[in-house]
């Protein structure tokens, strides 16, 4: 054990550093918010201290038309005089500007500020729930995007409103069964500018004449797609905007025609809005002003007065007599809910925006320029009283959400913040009770009181929104920086440890010369760096398997060249390349599977050569080949062990061979090819896998504890290392193979063969023509290849770095019901089985077969080389993961940060810690 400590302490230290670094970085990076399952109900209001007439608020509009123009920049809508320079894409939606100018009290343009991430899906989620979507909305199922949180659409349905949707099919994904009628069009094809829009136009105008809906949602995608393909400053973009102008003109004309008393749209509100903006190149997703600034145009078809100036936060354009105020998108859900008179979404933290609210709720009639006479003042007061009631309900709902959230969420708000929130709320409430007291006395004093009280509510609401924003949308850069710093420190420790090992290796061989920098070392460092820097781009992360395979094949070609140079082991090098090619095909199959579910990839099955062999033969092959491969594996194991005499190992191997037989039996019973399946079915389905798991566990326990009791000294260190390796690999393999399914034995055979080739080829660069006696060189190239192969195996076995890439089916082999712990363990074994567990445990391959002299005095040499290999492998993994972490930190405002970078980060980090732990355990086991 003391011998182990000499180098083993490094593995422990590095593992410790990695865990600390990952924890700190994750805390700063992964924003989490718990999704609450609660929803608001009409009856809830009885708990609130506020006055209410009907359900939460008095309905102010009967019908609502929401037209969403995807990626609508603010300057598409606002008049060009608001900007320094007039650009070709400005002033194209003239009808909106004209309406806002002509009827300033009933039509208004707002600048809407979205919260990042500014992608359509996240924005729609934010718009309808009034919350801030984050990476881990805990409680959401990772696969399906359907919104489970309480939201505006759900409230509409609950309260008997009928909703019609047309356009972007993201809505039907988010709200699968909510719409009375829906006309979804695929949003997938970015190059198609017109399908969605034409579909919308086709249904929009006729729908305006119909009575069978209360809320209409039309989502146009053309501007978004035109931006993605051509950019903002392009003819297609301007054509799109002009087309929208025509459509909106028609819609407004139609609504105006029917806005008379008793007509269909007597009390309707039209909202034209963007879900987010876009940059001049048409990108969006991040948090730059261009991306978050979009616009809301709202228009009611009644003649209404305007608000007193205290509530108007606008920037005005005096020359044109037009003001534009700014409104956070967060406020949309709650404002619209209050206008329609439905309960506010439970998790909303927005406030009812006074200006937007005033557009539809005009209860008094006065002009800004006129001095207020007594009557107007009463009306204003009435309006304000009404608004106070609304905002009171609003504040109560937000307070309730914050209370419930901090009670039920793991990572809530700090107690300090909560105290401040309660304090502000209490103040506002106190104000209100005072004001209702005043109200009875004189109406003259109540106006300023009401205003003050609204102010108090505003203070509370804006504080909550700000707090939530900092909690849910802002990264903690300090923590992220610290995490990265510790990771870099751990890399330094790694290199230090490897240098130490190098030195003592040279020392124990009594070599004076330093091995220096070999070509293999250069190539290995170059490859690792290439791979590390490739992680900066989302495209390379998506195709990581192919990149790893490309690098693996490159090293394979270099080794082939070496073997040409030395004129030996050509067959091995060629086989290795062939295997790389086979893995590449498997990776492409995996990529295709990924493309089917990923929102970032388009399926390209171009390379597939439609297999037209007769179906039955094909299925027959698919059943037989894996079983054949299993038999071959078992045979190899048997052969490998037969020449050694070591009690436990033989026991373990026999157990594994028995497990293989069981696996074969299990597969036969599952297949339909043979009829004997029937009588095995009931019995085999769960018991066979469970037997295999328990055999595996038993083997591991045996291997772990028996050496403690029987200390036998072997002079044949190489042999005993080999036996140890074979037995632990075989103990793990049966479980991994059954979880991987029928590809398992094939992949295992392939990696066995690849490992054999690598082992044979190791150090070939240094071989002299006479013989392979050079042992002084520690060659990192085969370890790099092994690590690249591990990455390839991860992807070739049909995994990818996303949560929908987990093979959930594997968790239920041998189990019918979901129990968290066993299922999580099985899923981990399936996900990391080949790529991490077996790879790390198989590393001693390069020592057990190395051409080192097999004498007792060289025992320390073996252990040094073993540690060295573990360390180099760990360093390669750690370097890649550090690169991932740095890239994730750099790309934290990237469009795909939650879709792609964050899952990659999670997978990599889990893999890294698993690798560290395995290296730690393996170094104890093998020592």
């Amino acid at each position, binding site marked *: 054990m003391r011998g182990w400590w000499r180098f083993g302490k490094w593995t422990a230290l590095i593992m410790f550093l990695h865990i600390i670094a990952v924890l700190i970085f994750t805390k700063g990076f992964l924003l989490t918010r718990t999704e609450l399952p609660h929803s608001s109900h009409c009856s809830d209001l009885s708990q609130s201290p506020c006055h209410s007439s009907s359900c939460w608020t008095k309905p102010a509009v009967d019908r609502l038309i929401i037209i969403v123009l995807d990626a609508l920049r603010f300057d598409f809508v606002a008049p060009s005089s608001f900007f320094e320079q007039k650009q070709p894409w400005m002033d194209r939606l003239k009808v909106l500007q004209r309406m806002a100018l002509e009827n300033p009290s009933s039509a208004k343009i707002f600048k809407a500020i979205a919260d990042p991430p500014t992608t359509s899906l996240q924005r729609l989620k934010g718009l309808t729930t009034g919350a801030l979507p984050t990476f881990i909305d805990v409680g959401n199922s990772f696969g399906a995007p359907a919104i489970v949180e309480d939201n505006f659409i759900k409230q509409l349905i609950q309260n008997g409103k009928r909703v019609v949707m047309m356009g972007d099919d993201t809505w039907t994904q988010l709200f699968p069964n909510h719409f009375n009628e829906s006309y979804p069009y695929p949003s997938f094809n970015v190059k198609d500018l017109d399908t969605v829009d034409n579909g919308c136009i086709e249904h929009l105008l006729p729908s305006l004449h119909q009575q069978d809906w209360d809320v209409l949602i039309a989502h146009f995608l053309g501007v978004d797609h035109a931006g993605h393909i051509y950019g903002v400053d392009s003819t297609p973009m301007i054509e799109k905007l002009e087309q929208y102008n025509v459509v909106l003109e028609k819609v407004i004309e139609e609504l105006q025609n029917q806005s008379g008393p008793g007509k269909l749209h007597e009390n309707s509100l039209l909202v034209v809005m963007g879900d987010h903006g876009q940059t001049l190149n048409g990108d969006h997703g991040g948090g730059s002003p261009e991306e978050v600034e979009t616009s809301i145009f709202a228009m009611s078809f009644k003649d209404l007065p305007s608000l007193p100036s205290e509530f108007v936060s606008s920037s005005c354009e005096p020359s044109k007599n037009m003001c534009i105020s700014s409104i956070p998108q967060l406020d949309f859900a709650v404002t619209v809910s209050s206008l329609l008179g439905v309960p506010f979404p439970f998790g909303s933290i927005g406030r009812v925006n006074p200006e937007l609210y005033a557009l539809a709720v005009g209860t008094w009639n006065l002009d800004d320029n006129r001095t207020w006479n007594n009557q107007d003042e009463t009306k204003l007061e009435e309006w304000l009283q009404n608004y106070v009631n609304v905002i009171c309900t609003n504040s109560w709902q937000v307070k309730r959400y914050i209370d419930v959230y901090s009670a039920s969420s793991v990572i809530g708000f700090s107690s300090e913040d909560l105290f401040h929130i309660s304090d502000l709320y209490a103040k506002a409430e106190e104000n209100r009770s005072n004001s209702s007291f005043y109200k009875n006395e004189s109406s003259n004093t109540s106006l300023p009181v009401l205003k003050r009280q609204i102010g108090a509510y505003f203070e509370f609401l804006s504080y909550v929104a700000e707090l939530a924003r900092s909690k849910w949308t802002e990264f903690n850069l300090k923590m992220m920086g610290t995490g990265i710093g510790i990771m870099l420190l751990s890399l330094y420790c790694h290199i230090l440890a490897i240098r130490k090992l190098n030195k003592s290796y040279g020392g124990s061989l009594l070599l004076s010369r330093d091995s220096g920098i070999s070509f293999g070392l250069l190539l290995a460092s170059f490859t690792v760096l290439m791979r590390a820097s490739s992680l900066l781009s989302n*495209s*390379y992360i998506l195709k990581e398997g192919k990149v790893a395979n*490309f690098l693996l094949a490159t090293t*394979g070609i270099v080794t082939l*060249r070496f073997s*040409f140079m030395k*004129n030996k082991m050509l067959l091995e090098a060629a086989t290795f*390349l062939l295997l790389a090619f086979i893995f*590449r095909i498997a990776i492409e199959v995996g990529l295709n599977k990924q493309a089917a579910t990923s929102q970032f990839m388009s399926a390209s099955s171009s390379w597939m050569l439609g297999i037209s062999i007769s179906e039955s033969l094909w299925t027959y092959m698919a059943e037989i080949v894996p079983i054949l491969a299993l038999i071959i594996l078992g045979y190899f194991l048997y052969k490998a062990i037969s020449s050694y005499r070591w009690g436990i190992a033989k026991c373990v191997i026999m157990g594994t061979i028995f497990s293989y037989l069981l696996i074969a039996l299990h597969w036969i019973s599952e297949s339909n090819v043979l009829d004997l399946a029937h009588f095995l079915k009931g019995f085999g389905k769960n018991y066979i896998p469970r037997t295999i798991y328990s055999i595996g566990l038993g083997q591991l326990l045996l291997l772990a504890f028996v050496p403690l009791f029987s200390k036998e000294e072997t002079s044949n260190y190489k042999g005993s290392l080999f036996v140890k390796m074979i037995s632990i690999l075989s103990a793990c393999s049966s479980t991994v193979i059954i979880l991987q399914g029928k590809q398992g034995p094939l992949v295992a055979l392939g990696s066995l063969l690849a490992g054999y080739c690598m082992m044979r080829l190791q150090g070939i660069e240094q071989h002299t023509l006479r013989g392979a006696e050079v042992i002084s060189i520690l060659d990192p190239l085969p370890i790099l290849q092994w690590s690249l192969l591990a990455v390839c195996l991860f992807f070739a076995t049909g995994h990818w770095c996303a949560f929908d890439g987990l093979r959930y089916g594997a968790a239920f082999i041998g189990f019918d019901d979901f129990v968290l712990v066993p299922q999580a363990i099985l899923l981990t074994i399936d996900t990391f089985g080949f790529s991490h567990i077996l790879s790390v445990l198989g590393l001693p391959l390069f020592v057990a077969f190395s051409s080192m002299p097999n004498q007792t005095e060289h025992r320390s040499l073996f252990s040094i080389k073993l540690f060295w290999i573990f360390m180099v492998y760990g360093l390669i993994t750690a370097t890649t993961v550090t690169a991932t972490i740095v890239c994730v930190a750099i790309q934290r405002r990237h469009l795909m940060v939650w879709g792609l970078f964050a899952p990659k980060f999670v997978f990599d980090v889990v893999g890294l810690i698993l690798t560290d732990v395995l290296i730690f355990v393996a170094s104890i086991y093998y020592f």
Partner: protein
Amino acid sequence: MKEELEKSSQSTTSSFQVFFIHVCCGVALAVGFWVARNVYSINLISDPTTTLRLIWAFEFPVVILLFSCCRQKPEKCSYLKTIARGLLGLPIGALLNALGAFALGAPVGLQYLEKTVSWSLLMSSFTFVPTACVYGSCWTDWHRIFACTKPKGPLDFMLCLPAHGAVIGAWFGAWPMPLDWERPWQDWPICVSYGAMAGYVVGMVGSIGLALTHTGGKQLKAE
């Protein structure tokens, strides 16, 4: 010209020869591009197969004719025979290049077959054909140039550097392929061909430079 070239190649290849051959190869490449653009008004992006074939049609004859002049042991091997072995080397080299590309991830589909064939023919004329013409099937020479990378003399440099340049260039050329820029030139084998040609040209420039310094050094020694 041909006789002059042959005469001198018996002893050593002069730097002028190296310069001349490389410039001819480079010009052939450029002419191929020019003809594709101005005569057929196609380019690698709009029609990769035809363009690659066109460039190859200009490059390959120049390569095979010029390098055959530098053949070793011209007394044993006639000019026509050299050309014949160059022609034989073409498909073998193309096959090797294609296999390498497949191992590295080139698409294997019937619809890519034409493109891959054209690309590998061009690669073969960059890498394999010159050496096949000069050294034929002499294993030790091949081994020296391609496995050990120990070229000696301007002739070896002339074979070794452009070939390695083309392969390494093609390797780097493959890197932009997975990016999601959705540019038409990211398709196989367009950017790989660009990379290969760029690497080839760089290799030729390097070879000329080395040949110049090399012979310069020799002349100094002789003096």
